[in-house]
């Protein structure tokens, strides 16, 4: 009997500790890469009860951490004061934001009111009724918003998201390195010239082209602009995977040559390397770096063609952070008021001083703004011609699979042919 009890207790202990491992997988990243802040006044959670005249209402915002959340936080005090509201802000990493919104979506009463959504989640969120219909709440796009940026925000003519932060891929470069490489950055309009600049810089002892090597999604999203320049894409018009095509292979072989001039680094390291002059070029996002005359780095639009004088394509990949309201929000009207407030031209214009990148012509083409920040003209041009990642429900899995195979190819574990054939087979099974 004693032996039996001892065995049961030992098994229970092992299982408890081991089972914690699976919980860690879901909960750890929340603590690992995200931080919870309250801005600017602390509150606990959303409330559905009518507030008294002295008691402020509460709104909970769940946002992408970094500049994207900071610009909204900076705008909140005025809204709070004018509407007797207290806002609680959760700023999270990319994956945590997706998971938290999705996990809360099945609750009858939601914990979040206003949420930030990446365009690539739109299909999944729409299919599972995660977001509130903004059209029903009275929201309309105005003519000032760059039309192309709203492409994924509507479903069947109904608005579910508003494009808030104009994140779109740009080509980051170190001014000195590019100049020393003998390339006129203002005239660059092909990836061939990017290759020349990076090879020349590498021959001068600098790192050429850097890529993000943190997650499978990084591998995919950093490669897509180049793929577009080679007239390739990851799915066809029927959303069938197209990663084992001649265009894809040609683009990937070119990419391998390009990244051989540099190496994979984390996002923070890439920015630091370009700013310090240790590296020459990388695909980046406006939210990463704010150029200025006295800064060492800047950015241009992603070159539209693969070869000099070749066919030009829309190569700017959107990573626009949209804002929406959760379907199960307990404060939809107030959240709508906040959404309209942060989407207003005045607030968006003011956000530029905090690193914001509006999707509005009136902001990006404002003479005073351009005088201070001429790089916003580049962003505006990129936003006008941007391309959203495929709007498919399986996109998170899709990038996992493709990114993992690209990781293998880039690190020499698989050849281009084998890696892409494997990716194609897995993606076809996924999309079947």
């Amino acid at each position, binding site marked *: 009997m004693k*032996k039996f009890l*001892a*065995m049961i207790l*030992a*098994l*229970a202990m*092992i*299982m*408890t*500790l*081991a*089972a*914690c*491992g*699976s919980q*860690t*997988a*879901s909960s*750890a*990243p929340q*603590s*690992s*890469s995200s931080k919870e802040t309250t801005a600017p006044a602390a509150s606990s959670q959303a409330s559905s009860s009518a507030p008294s005249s002295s008691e402020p209402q509460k709104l909970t915002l769940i946002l992408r951490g970094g500049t994207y959340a900071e610009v909204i936080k900076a705008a909140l005090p005025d809204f709070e004061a004018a509407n007797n509201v207290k806002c609680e802000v959760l700023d999270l990493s990319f*994956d945590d934001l*997706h*998971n938290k919104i*999705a*996990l809360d*979506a*099945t609750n009858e009463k939601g914990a979040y009111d206003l949420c930030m959504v990446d365009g690539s989640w739109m299909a*999944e969120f729409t299919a*599972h009724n*995660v977001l509130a219909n903004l059209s029903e709440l009275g929201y309309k796009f105005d003519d000032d918003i760059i039309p192309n940026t709203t492409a994924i925000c509507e479903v069947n003519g109904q608005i579910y998201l508003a494009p808030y932060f104009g994140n779109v891929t740009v080509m980051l470069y170190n001014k000195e390195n590019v100049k020393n490489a003998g390339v006129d950055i203002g005239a660059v309009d092909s990836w061939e010239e990017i290759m020349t600049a990076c090879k020349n810089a590498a021959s001068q002892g600098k790192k050429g082209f850097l890529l993000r*090597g*943190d*997650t*499978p999604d990084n591998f995919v999203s950093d490669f897509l602009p180049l793929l577009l320049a080679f007239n390739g894409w990851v799915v066809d018009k029927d959303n069938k995977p197209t990663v084992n095509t001649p265009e894809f292979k040609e683009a990937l072989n070119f990419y391998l040559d390009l990244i051989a001039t540099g*190496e*994979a*680094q*984390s996002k*923070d*390291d890439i920015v*630091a*390397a370009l700013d*310090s002059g*240790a590296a020459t070029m990388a695909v980046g996002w406006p939210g990463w770096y704010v150029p200025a005359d006295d800064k060492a780095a800047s950015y241009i639009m992603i070159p539209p063609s693969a070869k000099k004088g070749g066919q030009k394509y829309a190569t700017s990949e959107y990573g626009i952070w949209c804002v929406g309201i959760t379907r199960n929000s307990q404060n939809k009207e107030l959240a709508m008021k906040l959404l309209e407030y942060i989407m207003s031209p005045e607030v968006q214009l003011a956000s530029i001083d905090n690193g914001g990148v509006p999707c509005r012509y009136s902001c990006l083409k404002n003479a005073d703004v351009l005088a201070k920040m001429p790089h916003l003209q580049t962003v505006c041009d990129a936003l006008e011609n941007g391309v959203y990642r495929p709007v498919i429900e399986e996109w*998170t*899995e899709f990038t*996992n699979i493709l990114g*993992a195979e690209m*990781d*293998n190819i*880039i*690190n*020499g*574990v698989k050849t281009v042919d084998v890696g892409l054939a494997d990716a194609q087979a897995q993606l076809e099974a996924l999309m079947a």
Partner: protein
Amino acid sequence: MSNKPYKLSEGALGDRAFPHIMLAPTLIVLTVMTLYPLVFTFIYSFTDYNYLKQSASFIGFGNYITLFKNNYFRQAIFNTVKFTLLAVMFEMFFGLLVAVFVNSLKKGQKIMRTLLLLPYLLPAVTVALSFRMMLSPNYGITTQVLTTLGLPVYNWFHEIKTAFNTILLIDVWQNVPFVFLLLYASLQTVSSDQYEAASIDGANVLQQFWNVTVPNIKNSIALCTLLRTIDTFRLFEKVNILTGGGPANSTATITQFLYNYGIKNLKFGFGSAGAIVMTVLVLILSSFYIKKAIQ
């Protein structure tokens, strides 16, 4: 008045029922906290449960078949087992070494104990982020020191040849203090008489360590090994923050795989199957200790 001592087990409860009643609250808590989630994880592992879809169909061993057909999962199992064996081996070795050293000190044991414990007190996330900064190829202090000394500099977390070992080193650095603390406490209980007797019998330091120290602390060593094995098997934060399982899946662990392919996609049925496989593997690795505990 009788001087006969009162026995708790006497009276209405009886000799047999009393201990069971006393154990009941613990057993109920254990059942709720352990068996309930375990049973549900087990049941979900046979379904295609997707949290967002809120639907679950029974698919038999579908998840398990998919798992074992997946090259990345097999690679993750290999990485996890390799990492666990290496990490536990190094942690036990250095932990024991430090414990014996500190225990032998005539002065300064308290301050050494406190200082040595510091890495273990830090959250894994903080440790990961600190090392990420220190080993940055651009602004990391390690890079600057190595460059100054004219030594080769590596891109520690993004090269296949260095990523796994760098994470291993960080994990060992953080967890040696745990082993040290447990073994140090055990060493404190070893009677000095035994060392004196061994010394009189002519045993040298190594012989004393092997014939006196080790037999006295072997149970603590076994327990420590078990706890470190279970904990290392669950390695997640450091991998997720520092490499995300790359480069080329070379640092992917089972938990990282489950996060990437199960939790992140909200495919909890698939994730549950992976969790069950992981639990079974931990049970196998821990079976030596369990067997010993039963005996």
